[in-house]
């Protein structure tokens, strides 16, 4: 029986809205975190590590591991698994510590 998580719990949210990930449009459901919206779009990575430049996304899912840090509307180091997605949010891949623009 093929079903989705939303089918399973009988979800009936308001219509989805749009956010962007590095300029690509992604739809999010009202009530989803930024990380959940990205997962729903099949996006698993939105950060690169400081030393190796390797891709990372959500790992612990509950705000403990900090692997899901993203730059959200220009603000770096937000925990994407905790921050609710809002219409028009612009998520950008966070490179390293996310403050390259500050020269620190």
């Amino acid at each position: 029986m093929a079903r989705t998580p939303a089918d399973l719990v009988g979800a009936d949210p308001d219509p989805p809205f749009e956010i962007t990930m590095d300029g690509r449009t992604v739809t999010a459901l009202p009530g989803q975190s930024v990380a959940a919206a990205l997962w729903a779009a099949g996006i698993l990575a939105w950060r690169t590590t400081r030393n190796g430049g390797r891709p990372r996304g959500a790992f612990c899912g509950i705000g403990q591991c900090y692997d899901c840090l993203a730059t959200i509307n220009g603000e770096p180091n937000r925990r994407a698994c905790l921050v609710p997605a809002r219409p028009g949010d612009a998520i950008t891949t966070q490179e390293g510590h996310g403050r390259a623009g500050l020269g620190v």
Partner: protein
Amino acid sequence: MPVSVSEPYDLAVIGAGPAGLAGAVTAAEHGLTVALLDASDQVGGQFYRTPDPELRAARPEALHHDWAAFADLRARQRSGNGITHLAGHRVWTVTRGGGGTWAVHAVTGADGAGERPVCVPARALLVATGSYERQLPFPGWTLPGVVGAGGAQAMLKSGLVLPGIGAPSARAGRRARGRIVVAGSGPLLLAVASSLAAAGAKVPAVVEAAGYLRYARHPRALATNAHKMVEAVVHGSALLRHGVRLRARSAVTAVHGTGRVEAVTVSRLDRDWRPVPGTDRRIACDALAVGHGLTPQIELAVTLGCATRTTADGTSALVLDGFQETSVPGVWAAGETGGVGGARLARVEGELAAIAIAARLGGRPGPAGSGRVARLRRARSRMRSFADAMAAAHAPGSGWPTWLAGDTDVCRCEEVTAGTIREAVDDLGARDARTVKLLTRAGMGWCQGRMCGSAVSCLAAAGGAAPAPPGERRPFAEPVPLGVLASLDPPDEDRP
């Protein structure tokens, strides 16, 4: 300046999961004023993580076990007088306030980012902060698509999403997407796998490092905890129905893929969790949900000086007396903070703690020897014995570090490899996690060792000593903006 309430609450409960909710409700029913602080906007904790109200889920119970007990507690919390639910409050420290009270410091906002600082005074504390997942590293575990088993379930329960689903890869057709291998050790794996399968994922295998026969060494604990057996049967039959294969005494020892998970290697393990040569099997998948049991989240209590003990699976938990009080008078704890034991035990302990707190604040020497108290204590002791048997069965075997390659990252935040840590141990003489940290920066990053602490202390003990649990003493349990620190009053009340 922190927002303060001038009159202290009788009780501050930190954490609104099964233990904290039961404690808050019971305390309020005993006439106490209660502040219930929790990081989430909703009560329930990680176990009863519900879809956000905006997702309007008609059947949230479809993703939960024992929902009726939670629904009862939530109804009593909502209708009860005396409980102030401080949702979205991330507690970062607790200090001694004036006149024998405690000061609970929190920041607000989804991830505590630069928002309003709050200080809640209270005469007693109930620490019900639960646990987070313990992770053991292996080659490839930092690849996107590898997620915590509990994390996969948490994201499913609250956001209705599955990891690795929805990405049309060039090679995989639509039918092939959404395969999630579940691996690690502990009873949570069965619950996670059955949730993922029910929600539409294809689970090619559940890979459990321990052997289930180890439970048979504790016949009495099994016989007196029939509900746990029922749970296992419920999850087990759900897995059978979904055609999920359970591989015990096996582990995922490598993840393959470029950019994201494409397959895993599963190896048979010997009794010490060493891979048996020639048993490797490759399983194609789109995500791996992995976890090796749970770690009590006890930073706040440890900062206050509460004594800890090492549990049967090598984690640290708080030392508690017969009525849930820690070694620091006036601080009680319940649920996973006293040792991982599940939601039902957490509810019993929360209730017991609240009765004891009400007695203490009411000036009575101890909780009345009522039938209710006796019943709660019997239930607690019965379920603790099962928790001990479970912890012993799933304790990591000494051979798991043989899964590591020299270039495997152990510390995810600081990208410290197993090779670097071994060098610190073998060549530089480090014998404990703290020395390894000083020499390599392992555990010094954003998560402050929450993800790598267990692994680092085990590698540090490679010289032969039993691994000491990682020290959880951290100045802050949450990141706080400097402005919040600057606005704190100096703690002058208790100075000599």
